[in-house]
């Protein structure tokens, strides 16, 4: 059946925000502002208390952008390998480190700036076994940028207790003292409170938008979602980001009402799990054009960017419902400690991707429920050689889903290293999968 399609009205606004983001970071010092760098999983609201002119640079989205520009990426990867970085390390970070080591900074439009704008400090987290070490190594390459990482290894959200939260909160309190020392600025708790509220708004709004994609036809396909979700990873505590998500929510809601889809022919719906191979997003195009197959959701974009209720208290079922805002949760944010408590709780409990690192069961339930709730026919999994964290449990999930009768295809690649992707093999997997399911090519 032919479906109405139209471009997103707010597409350009999202694009511009991302374009400006890298520029704002670059130009921050010209106006006496502060630059910090860290993982996209960092407690993004916390440095915001240093002032209204604080600009982050998160490493994973930067690495993904670099990977998209293959020429830059190849130079970055080769540069860092010459310094002795192993090829199986995080694909994003090899691009990031390579960029630092080449002393070249990439803007979102692909243009390059020299030198690389060093951050005033690195502020990150540690969840996989190398997150904090990423920035330790980056700091060494940068010639010794002060670095602080928050250990969040407290276990899955449904097992949280006050002492676990307390552990993270105390580290965040220390971090603030440390940031004051490093930057010589006085910390403003009001700004922190605002930022923490914005973070919650951005992430729950994105969850609500994701939910709208359960509609048939799906209003968004995955490549659009990549462009939308990324703001939660680069600066989710920014009020402008909240506004953009409000705008997007209204638009997607409207599309659903009017039956506007992402694809003219939606004959096959699937979900994905891992970060995509950024240099080869044509995988998605191939699926869409040849098979009318649309990716309607992803553990990656939904799980990382949005806040969800997640595992129920007993740890039995996964619930893909947006997480509560502080008001809905009856939580009052009135000072530094309550603000830090909320952001710790919010991230530890409702960020889906933090839960499934602690158990296969969580990842299985989460994935199974996504396949069901978004009304899909299958899952296409990326055996991503570029991220060992995202690869955790994936094969166990595959096994689980196959046993439940859900068709699963896997292809091998790397989210950010073009040398580890074989186009012909991947298309071959897709064709074999579709043929085995009896899905005909569109003519």
């Amino acid at each position: 059946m032919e479906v109405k399609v139209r471009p997103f009205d707010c597409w350009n606004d999202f694009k511009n925000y991302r374009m400006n983001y890298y520029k704002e970071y670059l130009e921050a010092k010209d106006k006496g502002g502060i630059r910090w760098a860290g993982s996209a999983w960092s407690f993004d609201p916390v440095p915001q208390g240093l002032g209204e002119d604080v600009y982050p640079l998160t490493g994973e989205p930067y690495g993904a952008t670099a990977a998209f520009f293959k020429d830059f990426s190849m130079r970055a990867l080769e540069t860092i390998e010459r310094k002795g970085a192993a090829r199986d390390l995080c694909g994003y970070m090899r691009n990031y480190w390579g960029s630092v080591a080449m002393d070249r900074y990439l803007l979102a439009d692909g243009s390059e700036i020299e030198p690389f704008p060093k951050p005033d400090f690195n502020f990150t987290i540690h969840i996989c076994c190398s997150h904090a070490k990423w920035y330790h190594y980056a700091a060494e390459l940068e010639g010794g940028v002060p670095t602080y990482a928050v250990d969040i290894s407290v276990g899955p959200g449904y097992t949280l207790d006050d002492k676990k939260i307390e552990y993270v909160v105390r580290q965040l309190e220390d971090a603030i003292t440390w940031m004051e020392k490093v930057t010589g600025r006085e910390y403003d708790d009001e700004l922190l409170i605002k930022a923490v509220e914005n973070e919650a708004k951005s992430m729950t709004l994105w969850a609500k938008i994701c939910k709208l994609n359960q509609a048939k036809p799906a209003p968004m396909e995955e490549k659009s979602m990549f462009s939308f979700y990324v703001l939660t990873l680069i600066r989710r505590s920014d009020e402008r980001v909240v506004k953009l998500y409000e705008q997007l929510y209204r638009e997607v809601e409207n599309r659903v009402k009017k039956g506007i889809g992402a694809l003219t022919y939606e004959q096959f719906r699937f979900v994905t799990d891992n970060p995509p191979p950024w240099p080869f997003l044509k995988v998605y195009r191939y699926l869409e054009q040849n098979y009318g197959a649309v990716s309607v959701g992803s553990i990656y974009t939904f799980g990382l960017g949005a806040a969800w209720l997640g595992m129920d208290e007993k740890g039995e079922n996964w619930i893909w419902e947006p997480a509560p805002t502080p008001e809905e949760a009856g939580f009052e944010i009135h000072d530094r400690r309550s603000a830090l408590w909320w952001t710790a709780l919010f991230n530890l409990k409702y960020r889906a991707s933090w839960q499934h690192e602690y158990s296969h069961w969580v990842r299985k339930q989460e994935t199974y429920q996504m396949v069901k709730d978004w009304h899909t026919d299958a899952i296409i999994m990326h055996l991503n050689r570029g991220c060992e964290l995202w690869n955790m449990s994936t094969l166990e999930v595959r096994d689980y889903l196959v046993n439940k009768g859900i068709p699963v295809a896997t292809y091998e690649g790397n989210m950010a290293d073009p040398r580890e992707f074989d186009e012909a093999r991947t298309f071959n997997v897709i064709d074999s999968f579709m043929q085995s399911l009896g899905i005909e090519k569109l003519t």
Partner: protein
Amino acid sequence: MAVAGIDVGTKLTKVVIMDEDKNILAYVIERTGTDHKKSSEEAFEKAVEKAGLKREDIKKTIATGFGKISAPFADDEVTQVIAAGRGAYYVKPTARTVIEVGAEESRAIQLDDNGNVKDFSLADKCAAGAGSFVDAMIRYLEVTPDEFGQLALQATRAIPMNAQCVVFAESEVVSLLHSNVPKAEISRAIHDAIADRVAAIARRIEIKDDVLLIGGLANDIGFIDAMKRELGKDVHVPENYPPELVPAIGAALSAL
């Protein structure tokens, strides 16, 4: 009326001519040259001739392997997974697990009772190249392919060798050779290592009886033996046709 299936592989080009009752009238297996189009054209002509037919007698041709790009005269193409699955069901209707080991690609396919592909798994990057690895090893050991398989059966000792990466495994084989380890033991070590990798691919799908081994390596008696050991169950090979022909048969069936 007759149809054809053509499978252009990295090493060999296979053509099957079939009548409408699914009888195989003729087949050829030829070396794939650097010019794929030329190779496929020549092999096709040869097969048609062998079947005692003319080109215009072939109503439909389906390509697999590299597909239409290497055999432009084909009417359509089908993926290797589907072709191998259909071919396997044809040569052995009781086959439920099909394991194909070719020069560059290895794959495992699960068939349902009607011969449809239920699940499949392909070799990961670091496990690819099993067939051409064997070719290289045969060169190093200076034996014929037949001798290579036979040798493995004579080994008195199993040397553990990790063949996660065939390139790196080659260096290990060279070391063994230079340490004067008997050829039989080296051959056994290579076969075990490959069987290990291939079984790992197969285990991603459910391994149900009967297991059918196809592709070039299914000619290798040492490999069949190693697979039996590795899977702990009986392993079959096609009885009436060369094991590397199976996907071409599947392609021909797809043309009916």
